[in-house]
């Protein structure tokens, strides 16, 4: 099965949900006129609001259901062709059960005239690793997601990671072990360190995304935010990486664009057969889990009784 993947990098207007939703609508509309028809559109972390909001998170956070309904309405306003279907993954600040999260919504959108039952929220991933160091302050403003969960879509088994999630190799491992064949990485990565061949954080992303793809034999679709927020500029470079770790297409660092590639999911099995690291891990999983279990045990209480 081959799916047509698109990742868009756009410059959101700070805290302006409606305008950013309209910008996403522009992308959907443009894609609807591009051939072959896109099956999946991936958008960056916090694309509906901008990333650095501090306490403003509480003003722009929305329930996933509302974001889905707004995306669906936008899609149906912009794409008039009957029978059109588009899966989207979009980063947003979420309000859920009295807490705020940095989340990624995966939804199937359909145009008017299509069976309305097909349009649905498929999954919401809440960022698992919240960077809170240096320029980052996420734990102060949002709560941490508790799961990394692969999920079934009409296109194949998929997982979402958000930015720092993907800096920990264990998240890609968890997703792949759950059967994900496509890993979507939504990112807002501020550029820093200009002494190397490219910007420091991008050099890191190059290693990470290739590493996830080739270790687990998965497609990786990366959508990177662009634009400057208070002097901190995001480094775009949206891309699609195949299960051998080859970058099929890559966007620029600072300019808006849509990158497109065809992902042959048959390649997943071929790549994994050639380098069966995932199968090796799966076979050793019980031992690996035992190690983690041991490491996660609470430390022994070494205080003497009278100190308690």
């Amino acid at each position: 099965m081959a799916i047509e993947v698109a990742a868009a990098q756009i410059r959101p207007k700070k805290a302006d949900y409606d305008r950013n939703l309209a910008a996403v609508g522009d992308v959907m509309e443009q894609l609807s006129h591009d051939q072959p028809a896109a099956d999946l559109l991936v958008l960056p972390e916090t694309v509906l609001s901008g990333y650095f909001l501090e306490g403003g998170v509480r003003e722009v956070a929305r329930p996933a259901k509302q974001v889905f309904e707004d995306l669906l309405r936008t899609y149906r306003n912009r794409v008039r062709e009957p029978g059109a279907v588009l899966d989207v993954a979009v980063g947003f600040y979420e309000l859920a059960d009295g807490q705020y999260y940095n989340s990624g919504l995966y939804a199937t959108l359909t145009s008017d005239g299509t069976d309305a039952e097909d349009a649905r929220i498929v999954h919401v991933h809440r960022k698992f690793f919240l960077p809170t160091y240096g320029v980052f302050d996420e734990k102060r403003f949002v709560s941490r997601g508790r799961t990394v969960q692969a999920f079934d879509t009409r296109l194949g088994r998929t997982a979402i990671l958000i930015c720092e999630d993907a800096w920990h190799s264990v998240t890609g491992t968890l997703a792949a072990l759950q059967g994900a064949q496509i890993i979507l990485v939504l990112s807002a990565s501020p550029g820093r360190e200009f002494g190397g061949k490219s910007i420091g954080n991008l050099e890191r992303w190059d290693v990470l995304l290739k590493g996830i793809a080739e270790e687990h034999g998965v497609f990786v679709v990366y959508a990177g935010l662009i634009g400057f927020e208070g002097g901190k500029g995001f480094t775009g470079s949206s891309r699609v990486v195949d299960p051998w770790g080859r970058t099929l297409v890559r966007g620029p660092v600072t300019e808006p664009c849509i990158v497109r590639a065809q992902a042959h999911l048959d390649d997943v099995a071929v790549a994994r057969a050639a380098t069966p690291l995932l199968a090796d891990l799966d076979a050793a999983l019980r031992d690996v889990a035992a190690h983690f279990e041991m490491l996660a045990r609470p430390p022994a209480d070494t205080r003497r009784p009278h100190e308690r």
Partner: protein
Amino acid sequence: MSARLPILRAPAADPESDADLKINEPVLAEWLIAFLRDEVVERRGFEKAIVGISGGVDSSLTAFLCARALGPEHVIGVRMPYRTSSPDSLAHAQLVADVLGIECRTVDISPAVDGYLATQPDADARRKGNVMARIRMIVLFDLSAALGALPVGTGNKTERLFGYFTWHADDSPPVNPLGDLFKTQVWSLARYMGVPEAIVNKPASADLIVGQTDEDDFGISYARADRILFYLLRGFTVDRLVEMGFPSSDVMLVKSKLDSTHWKRHMPTTAMLSTTSINDYYLRPVDY
């Protein structure tokens, strides 16, 4: 005994090496141009920038970056000499304007400075320098309002870390492309951007006092200060720097300048009285 194996040893730290301060000039230039376009035009809605051009390398490089980012027709350079300012400064500022083809205005700050200082006969050189710097900011912001051009700052990271600027004067423009670049990196980027050699090669000077140079004021060269600052900011201890080969007196000199000027890199201290105290509890980014 079998054949001896070659031993490949990692090089020892070299306090004279510039390797850690190396910048990728083309990538950095494009980044700062994108920064200026985004922060000046997209985020703040200005078409034009105004830059106080002293004739030194920082303001010259800033003008070059602004001209590339916004187009020379959208950049206004302002020369603001005091009567004791070096003629070279004025000439070099004009050279920048000529090379770039930007509008250049000249405002002699002597009457304003002298008018105030006439009431302060005891003012020493430091106070006079601060008055000049603050008058220059009055001019820059007033012309900003008159011309609809956003002031762009020119301070570099070394002088910010040394507190070598007048608080709420040189540091006040709302957008600054160079503030995270050490002085030696500014020189490197300036050469890449084509800032005239006469400007890049001359000794850096605040030009507030006749014959003054930054390095004389500091008591250490920029090259050495930048390397020490680089490691101190990364969390290296004084002992570690000395172990790496930096003279202890240099490390202590840099550290004392750094440690005594944290206040200059912050907004004024406000008495916190509530759980909605601005910038303590009520947190919104500058572009919110």
